[in-house]
């Protein structure tokens, strides 16, 4: 059963963002980790880097694929999740919790409202699955 955490918003490209005051966390969804299957490596940005919404902020590698991860909102990186270096499997095990990728300070908080909520994102995923992407 694919999970869709309700306390956050999503991009169609399967990133999630969760606001925490004037900071935010970003990661990838349960649907995404299912698609990727076993994650073997996560490449994260440097602290202090800034990105615009939609810029490539990280890369996730499985055995047979590599996926770019896009910044869900514009902002400056405050910290990156060091645990993912030793335990990339966390992305498969706990994509909404321990496998957050970056903590950042959103520079345009208004971008959040235009993102998909859990229900809209779930609908998008179900449509995508039906179209036969394996």
């Amino acid at each position: 059963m694919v999970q869709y955490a309700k306390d956050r918003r999503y991009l169609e490209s399967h990133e999630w963002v969760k606001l925490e005051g004037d900071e935010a966390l970003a990661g990838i969804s349960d649907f995404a980790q299912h698609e990727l299957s076993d994650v073997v490596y996560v490449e994260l940005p440097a602290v202090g880097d800034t990105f615009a919404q939609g810029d490539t902020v990280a890369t996730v590698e499985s055995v047979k694929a590599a996926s770019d991860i896009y910044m869900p909102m514009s902002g400056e990186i405050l910290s990156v999740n060091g645990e993912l270096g030793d335990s990339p499997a966390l992305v498969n095990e706990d994509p909404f919790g321990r496998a957050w990728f970056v903590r950042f300070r959103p520079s345009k908080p208004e971008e959040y409202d235009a993102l998909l909520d859990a229900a809209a994102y779930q609908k998008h995923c179900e449509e995508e699955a039906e179209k036969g992407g394996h």
Partner: protein
Amino acid sequence: MKEPLIYDISSPGRMAANLPACDVPRAPLPKAYLRQALPLPEVSEVDLVRHFVRLSQLNYGVDKGFYPLGSCTMKYNPKVNEDVARLPGFVNTHPYQDAGTVQGNLMLMHGLQEFLKEISGFAAVSLQPAAGAHGEFTGVLMMRAYHHSRGDQKRTRMLIPDSAHGTNPASTTMAGYETVKIVSDARGNVDLADLEAHCDDSVAGLMLTNPNTLGLFDEHVQQIARLLHACGGLLYGDGANLNAILGIVKPAALDFDVMHFNLHKTFSTPHGGGGPGSGPVGCSATLAPFLPGPIVTEELVEVEHEHAGECDHEDEEGEEVYRYSLEMPASPIGRMKAFYGNFGIFVRAYTYIRTLGAEGLRQASQDAVLNANYLLARLKGVYPLPYDRTCMHEFVLSGVLPGAPGVHTVDIAKRLMDFGYHPPTVYFPLIVPEAIMIEPTETESKQTLDAFADAMLQIAQEAKTQPELLHGAPHVTPVSRLDEVQAARQPVLQCLKG
């Protein structure tokens, strides 16, 4: 069935090599520069030989059985080529020897340049690139140099079909270009409308594989060239699939501007477990100045006859005498590697072309295409065929078998090993889900093809009735299915302690 690591067979004090003693006075060594430890193995010659012989026996090569890897052209590697490549006159020559002392080598290289020009129709060839991808990178750099030479700096994009081999976009990026994907149409051709929509003066060129990675000859290849040239772009040819068209059509006649050859595919040189290959590049006269160098040039030499005062171009037997030299093209992109290319591979390819001749090369392509179409005819009723057209030297099926929902291409591939076959190329090209790409080559007999087809049909049956045989495959190989996730999550990439 595990072979110990060479380090685990080692024992201090053993050595396999038998070196001469030092016959000169010993000079003082600079102590501060010397290393202390050197953790290399220590084995006797017999243990060394047994180790590598046993390792070899864990391998599967073309000499063991059918190896239908699509786009790799795993044809038989002639043994006479191996003998010739080992002639001491070739092996024991240093690349910096004076040209006058290596006329044999230069003559062979020049001959190979000329053969490749004749086969392809191109005006000029450089043998320097060491592999197909190296040749692709070369070609893209040449295209860039050409545009820049005309003061055209605004071409920043390269068009690449969605069926292309990954080396095409990777080479493009290395040259500083942006990749733009062009979709394929329902018949597996480059979609002309999509191509036309993208052809403008920001485009440096299109990288086209023809026949393509679906094994199909593009039905509009001449229109593709026209569209591209009309917007000022160049047409690059990925020659990986040249085995389908030797003596059938010349790429230059299809208006390609530059192309790489894969000597280790089309011209029978061995794959070596991953290399060495050789990726010469051929091009039009317009692009010839930009080839990387050096290349070999030929000059007719004046020969004085015995009769005083006579001087003509014939030696005593009446044959022309040439001198061969290494020269840089007029405005080369530079050097793609040190020295001149993989010479040992040139010797093999040259010998192959001399052995087959024009008729043999055409027959090779005809038989390659015939074999592929035959195998396709035997399999297409059972395996889904995404593009139902006459194929060239290879074809692509899908591993999604009706009535076998849990079975994937990887399971079919692994099960083929139990039947004694190397699997075909799988999961490529990307535009066919669960792709299986089969290229038999011309060096296989109908018997071999029939036996392979029988195995594939049996596996299709097993997929429906006994899928666990596929999921658990391979069963009879030296190791069973390996954990690639662990290999990547916890990389162990060498065995030195500490």
